[in-house]
C-alpha cells in the first residue's frame, strides 16, 4: 500500500467519525459547508483547471439547482429532495445552452457569458415573483433536526463528485480536456471535436454544481436570489476554492474548500470572538485581498505549489525532497 493511499484512507476514516466525536452543531455545520464547496470547487476545476474554460458564473448553476429544489417544494408541493434529482439536470441543460452560445467562439466570450449568465438568473429570480417569490426568498422546513444525516449525505455527494471527476480525468475524456486547455488548435488538428468536449466538461461541471445547489436548499432551508446567485460569494468563491487549492489537481479544490471555509468563518466571526468586532465587517475586504495575494504568490495553489511551500515555510532544502 502506498503512502498516498494510506493517507486517503486515514482521511476518509477521520471524516466518517468526525461528527460522532465532535458533537458541536457549529463545527459540523462548517464541515458540511466545506463539503458543499468541495463539490462546487471540484466542478469548477474540471471546467477551468482541466479544460481551460474559466467560468466566472458558477453561481448560475448553483442557484438554478437550489431554486429547482425550492420550487419543487413551494409550487409542486413535493419534497425538496426531488430537487436533488432534478436540480443537477436543470443546471446541466442551462450549461448546454451556455456552451452552445459560447464555445463556437474564441476569446473571452465564455468568461463574459458566464458572468452575465449569473446576473441574468439573479435578475430573473428577483423579478419573476410568481415563480420564485422574488426577494422574499424560499423558505422550507428542514427534514431532519440533527445535522448527522446532512453530514453523511454531504460527505457522500462530495466524495462521489471528486471520485467521478477523478475517473473522468483518467479516461480518454480527461486527456481530451487537458489537450484542449494546452493547445486548442493542436487538439483540433488531432481530430478532437473541441466544441463537443468543452460542452461535455461544462455539462458535468454544471450538473454537480446544480446538485450542490439542491443540497444547499435542503440543508439551509432558505434561499434568496442575493445568496445563491451572488457573484462574490458563490462565483468568485468557487474560483478562489479552485485556485487556493490548486487548479488542475484532483485534491486541490477539496483542500481549497476547507481552507476557504475556514478563512471565511475566521474573519466573519472576528477570530471566533477574540478580535475586535470591526474585523468581521472587513471580511469582504479580506476576501478581495486574498484573491490578489493568491494570484500573485500562489498561482498554482496549495496542492500545485506544495513543493514550493515546503521549501519556503518548512525550510526543507530542495535536495532532501
Amino acid at each position, binding site marked *: 500500500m502506498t503512502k498516498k493511499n494510506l493517507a486517503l484512507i486515514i482521511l476518509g476514516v477521520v471524516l466518517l467519525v468526525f461528527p460522532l466525536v465532535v458533537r458541536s452543531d457549529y463545527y459540523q455545520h462548517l464541515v458540511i459547508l466545506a463539503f458543499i464547496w468541495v463539490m462546487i470547487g471540484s466542478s469548477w476545476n474540471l471546467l*477551468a*483547471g482541466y479544460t*481551460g474554460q*474559466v467560468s*466566472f458564473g458558477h453561481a448560475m448553476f448553483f442557484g438554478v439547482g437550489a431554486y429547482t429544489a425550492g420550487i419543487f417544494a413551494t409550487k409542486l408541493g413535493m419534497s425538496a429532495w426531488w430537487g436533488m434529482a432534478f436540480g443537477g439536470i436543470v443546471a446541466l441543460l442551462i450549461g448546454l445552452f451556455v456552451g452552445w*452560445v*459560447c464555445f*463556437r*467562439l474564441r*476569446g*473571452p*466570450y465564455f*468568461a*463574459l*457569458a458566464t*458572468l*452575465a449568465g449569473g*446576473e*441574468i438568473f439573479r*435578475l*430573473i429570480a*428577483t*423579478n419573476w415573483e410568481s415563480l420564485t417569490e422574488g426577494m422574499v426568498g424560499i423558505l422550507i422546513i428542514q427534514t431532519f433536526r440533527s445535522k448527522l444525516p446532512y453530514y453523511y449525505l454531504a460527505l457522500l455527494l462530495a466524495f462521489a463528485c471528486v471520485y467521478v471527476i477523478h475517473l473522468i480525468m483518467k479516461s480518454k475524456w480527461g486527456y481530451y480536456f487537458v489537450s484542449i*486547455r494546452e493547445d486548442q488548435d493542436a487538439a483540433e488538428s488531432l481530430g478532437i471535436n473541441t466544441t463537443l468536449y468543452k460542452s461535455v466538461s461544462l455539462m458535468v461541471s454544471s450538473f454537480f454544481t446544480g446538485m450542490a445547489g439542491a443540497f444547499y436548499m435542503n440543508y439551509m432551508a432558505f434561499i434568496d436570489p442575493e445568496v445563491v446567485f451572488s*457573484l*462574490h460569494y458563490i462565483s*468568485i468563491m468557487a*474560483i478562489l476554492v479552485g*485556485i487556493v487549492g490548486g*487548479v*488542475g489537481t484532483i485534491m486541490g479544490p477539496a483542500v481549497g474548500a476547507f481552507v476557504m471555509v475556514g478563512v471565511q468563518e475566521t474573519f466573519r466571526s472576528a477570530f471566533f470572538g477574540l478580535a475586535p468586532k470591526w474585523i468581521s465587517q*472587513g471580511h*469582504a*475586504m479580506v*476576501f*478581495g*485581498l*486574498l*484573491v*490578489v495575494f493568491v*494570484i*500573485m504568490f500562489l*498561482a*498554482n495553489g496549495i496542492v*500545485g505549489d506544495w513543493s514550493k511551500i515546503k521549501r519556503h515555510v518548512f525550510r526543507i532544502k530542495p535536495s532532501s525532497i
Partner: protein
Amino acid sequence: MDVFLQTLVAGILIGGIYCLIGIGMSLIMGVMGIINLAHGQLMMVAMYITFVLSAYMHVDPYFSLIVAMPALFLLGCFLQKYLLNPLMKVESILPENQVLMTVGIGMVLAEIARFIFSSDYKCVKTSYGGSAFFISDISFNVPMCIAFIFAIVITVALFWFLAKTDTGRSIRATAQDKEAATLMGVNSTRITIITFGLGSALVASAGSLLIPIFYLFPDIGGPFTLKAFVICILGGLGSTVGAIFGGLTLGIAESLGATYIGMGYKDMVGFVIFVLVLVFLPGGLVGIKRLIKS
C-alpha cells in the same frame, strides 16, 4: 409618439456616458487582451473623489473632472505596473490570471470605499440638478445634456490623441499586433501602463459626469462593469469606434426597456442583447461592416 421620443432622447443622452465607459474598457481589451472587471469600481472611486470635492470643498462636479481624471490615470498606471504586469512572469495553468486579478482589485476598491464612507447612499446636490428645458414637448434634463456634450468633447480629444500623437499611435500599434509593435521599437510594457491609466481616466470622467444624476454607494461599480463589457461585445471586442455605437445602442435599448417592459427588467435588456449578439453577430456591430465589405 411623445413618450417614444422622450424615451429615445433619454436613451441617447445616457448612451453618451456609456460610450466613455465602453471606450475605456475597449482600449484596455484591445491592447492587453484582457477584460477589466474592475472597470465599474474604478468609476466608483472617481465618483467618490468627485463627491468629496463637492461635498467638503464645494467644487462643482464638472470642475472636479480636472482632479478625478488625472487621479484615476495614476491609479490605473499603478495597478497595471505593480499588480497586473508582474503576473506576466508568474507561471500558471490558467490564462485568465489577470482577469481574476482585476476582480480582486475591484472587490478591494469597493470594500475600501465602504470602510471610509460606509454603505450609505450619498448624493451631490447641485443648483441645476433637477432642471430641464423643453423642445416642443420633449424635456431635456440639463445635467444629462452637459454630460453628453462633455462626453463628445472627451471622445473627440481621445480620438485626436490616438490618431495624431506618437503615444497614441503606439497604443494602436500594440493593439493591432503586439509582437510587431515591440519589434518596431514600441515599449509595450510602458504602453500597457499608459493604456490602463487612460482607460481608467475615461471611466473616471464618466463617473464625474454621472454624479449630478445618480446617487452613490460602494457597490455601484458592479453593474457598470457588466454594462461596460456588454457595450464592448456589442461594438466588437477591442474596437473603440464600435464602443461608441455599443454605448449608444445600450443606452437606447435600456431606456426603451424601462419604458415599455418595466423598470425591474431594465438591467436585463443589456444582457438579452448580449446573448443575442453572441448568437447571431459574434463580431459585434463592427462585424457587420466587415460583412458588408467582404
